[in-house]
């Protein structure tokens, strides 16, 4: 048994961390925040130069063909530095659904550009406020929001219903074509922009292998990578809080010598440790395409969402007033924690999926999740 990343994967982690540090670490997100930009294009190009976006894309399709474990390592580092790049939209979501449900022509058409970072894709599945997409055999109509990087993506995979199918299936839409309207919307984390996407007769083609299960399968996979981003963020928030507790003095003592602060930090450590255990198992399940993936992925995402929110909010608490200033980075982690916790829909969906697929449940489930 070797339930940890390998030597090579650790080296990859160091290389990614170095690259991100070179681009300013959290300052990259800060720049996007202050300037209202879309993402850090320079960083994205540098990452693409290292083959990071294509880590889990086969060499045949222009990727670096490393694998999912490597992608998880990268995700954790991105989370740690809050990297403002379209990784969730273009790689975890768009590349993954094309890999899952695209024909080989579709894969050849889109994966190389995604791997190279020259095109940005996204996936639109969020039918907020009862909005829904419909496919009439040729074009799509409807509106979704929020769509990650929806304002800058070159194309989108849109989950839509059609006359012959009542459950959403994936369709590919060129966002530069006719019948597409998109507008950036304000969200809780301005460092990762989102848009409202309105399609009014936009030409679309189905992903050839798309079916009723495509969305759930996709989300399981994305949940694993997202969990690593969340853990990266959570652990960084814990480290920030720990460092501040070792530096800040009150009542003549480092505040980290007060049990109230020590125990707050200990509980944060426990959250992160549990989340990491769950995420490791999910990474293994993803890598092996194990039957356990739905439960493992849901457990990883639920656990990591809690850990990141917990650590991000207690990080502010340990920092006191200072932590509530715009200049300090605490709020960037707090914002990102909320964003990632909701990026894949209601936590209730994931909780239900976790329980539905628990390995030791004996009763058949009536609820289909």
């Amino acid at each position, binding site marked *: 048994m070797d339930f940890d990343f390998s030597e090579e994967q650790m080296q990859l982690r160091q290389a990614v961390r170095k690259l991100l540090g070179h681009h300013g670490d959290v300052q990259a997100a800060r720049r996007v925040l202050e300037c209202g930009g879309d993402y850090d294009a320079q960083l994205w190009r540098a990452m693409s130069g290292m083959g990071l976006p294509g880590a889990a894309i086969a060499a045949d399709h222009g990727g670096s063909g490393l694998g999912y474990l490597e992608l998880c390592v990268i995700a954790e580092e991105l989370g740690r530095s809050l990297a403002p790049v379209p990784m969730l939209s273009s790689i975890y979501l768009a590349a993954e659904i094309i890999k899952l449900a695209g024909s080989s022509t579709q894969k050849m058409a889109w994966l190389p550009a995604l791997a190279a970072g020259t095109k940005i894709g996204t996936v639109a599945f*969020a039918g*907020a*406020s009862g909005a829904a997409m419909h496919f009439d055999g040729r074009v799509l109509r409807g509106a979704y*929001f*929020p769509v990650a990087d929806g304002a800058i993506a070159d194309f989108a995979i849109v989950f839509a219903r059609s006359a012959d199918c009542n459950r959403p299936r994936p369709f590919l839409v060129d966002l530069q074509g006719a019948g597409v309207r998109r507008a950036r*919307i*304000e*969200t*809780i*984390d301005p460092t990762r922009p*989102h848009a*409202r996407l309105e399609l009014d007769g936009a030409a679309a083609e189905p992903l050839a292998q798309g079916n009723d299960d495509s969305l759930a399968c996709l989300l399981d996979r994305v949940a694993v990578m997202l969990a690593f981003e969340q853990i990266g963020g959570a652990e960084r928030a814990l480290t920030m809080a720990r460092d501040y507790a070792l530096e800040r*003095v*009150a*009542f*003549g*003592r480092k505040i980290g010598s*007060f049990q*109230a*602060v020590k125990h707050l930090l200990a509980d944060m450590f426990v959250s992160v440790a549990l989340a990491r255990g769950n995420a490791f198992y999910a990474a293994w399940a993803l890598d092996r395409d194990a039957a356990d993936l739905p439960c493992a992925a849901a457990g990883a995402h639920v656990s990591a969402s809690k850990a990141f*929110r917990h650590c991000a*909010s207690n990080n*502010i*608490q340990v920092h*006191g*007033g*200072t*932590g*509530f*200033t*715009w*200049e*300090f980075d*605490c*709020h960037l982690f*707090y*914002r990102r924690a*909320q*964003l990632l*916790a*909701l*990026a*894949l*829909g*209601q*936590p*209730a*969906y994931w909780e239900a999926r976790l329980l539905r697929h628990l390995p030791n449940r004996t009763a058949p489930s009536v609820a289909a999740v």
Partner: protein
Amino acid sequence: MNFDDTPEEAAFRKQARQWLDANAPWPLEAALREGGLSSPGLTDAFAAAKAWQKKKAEAGWACLNWPREYGGRGSTPMERVIWSQEEGPFAALSWLFTIGHGMCGPTMIAYASEQQKRRYLPALASGEEIWCQLFSEPAAGSDLAGLRTRAQRHGDDWIVNGQKVWTSGAHLSQFGIILVRTDPSVPKHQGLTMFFLDMRSPGIVIKPIRQANGRSEFNEVFLSDVRIPDAQRLGAPGQGWQVSLTTLMNERLSIGSGMATGFEPLIDYCCSARGPHGALIDDPALRSRLADWAIRSLGLKYTAMRAISALSRGATPGPENSIGKLVAGSMQQEIASFVLDLQGESGIVTDPAQAPADGRFQAMLLRAPATRVEGGTDEILRNIIAERVLGLPADIRVDKDVPFNALDSPA
């Protein structure tokens, strides 16, 4: 056990209600009930606050518990509670004067000269002059007595140098009370002195603090060679810590209005939003958490009533009132996060025009961390309850008997 007014209380309530019926800014009522001060219906919150305070003061309804000669009404604590019940939504218009009326005024009443009281208090009561409080510093938050702003005596003046922070309303204020260190050679609690000062004195620079939620409610105040006449000293030199306790104790008297817990908007939301079982409020999946918040929110409300009741019997509100903010702060954060979870993907949208429930829970989530810190962190409040209510030993204080300037790292 009853909620009935005594005959005197009933008469007072009637009088207040009649005056309010005739004089309150009723056109603002809906806006204040709906969205409070951030309501789009309230176009100029500053002017509205000033106007309402002036009107109240002219009719004798400002700062009810202050003596009449200083612009108050000489009311009993119970009358003050009745007034606040009757004033209802319009009480939100007092935001501009909270610090001045709640903390600066009572400190002036206790420590200023008669002449000063007659000069400053009526204008403070009527809202003509706004006051702020300069206490916290970058290196002195929970440990307020560790503050480093220095004042040195020069003839009849004191020369003040240093930096204050988290000063609410500094840029709107004519005056402020300030706690400074006048003797660094004695242990930290013993070398402090309180003053009041003119906020337009030369050497004062005020900068708004941009908060994590993007708003600016507070300021940094930089003081360079600011002169304060010794006549504006409140209490003896070195007695500043005792004077500040008066100020802070008066903060606690502001009961009755109570802290917002987020529970009411939560229930409004759960009554209108729909889930798989009809209105969310009937969704069994939410039941246990909603019920838990219900008992905490109702429990706080009834605890405040118990405190008011004790007040009307002549008791002094004690440190047990610290539970209000302790419970409310974390509830706001939990409730906001809970509602975002219900909203799923759209829970991240903050634009009020597009977000569910006008984005109010997103705004709550972004503001809540400050509530858990300002005016005493959760940890300090638990310490207060443990030490002052339950009688447990104080934390070990390594800096208690050491001269301030001999401390390792007053950094």
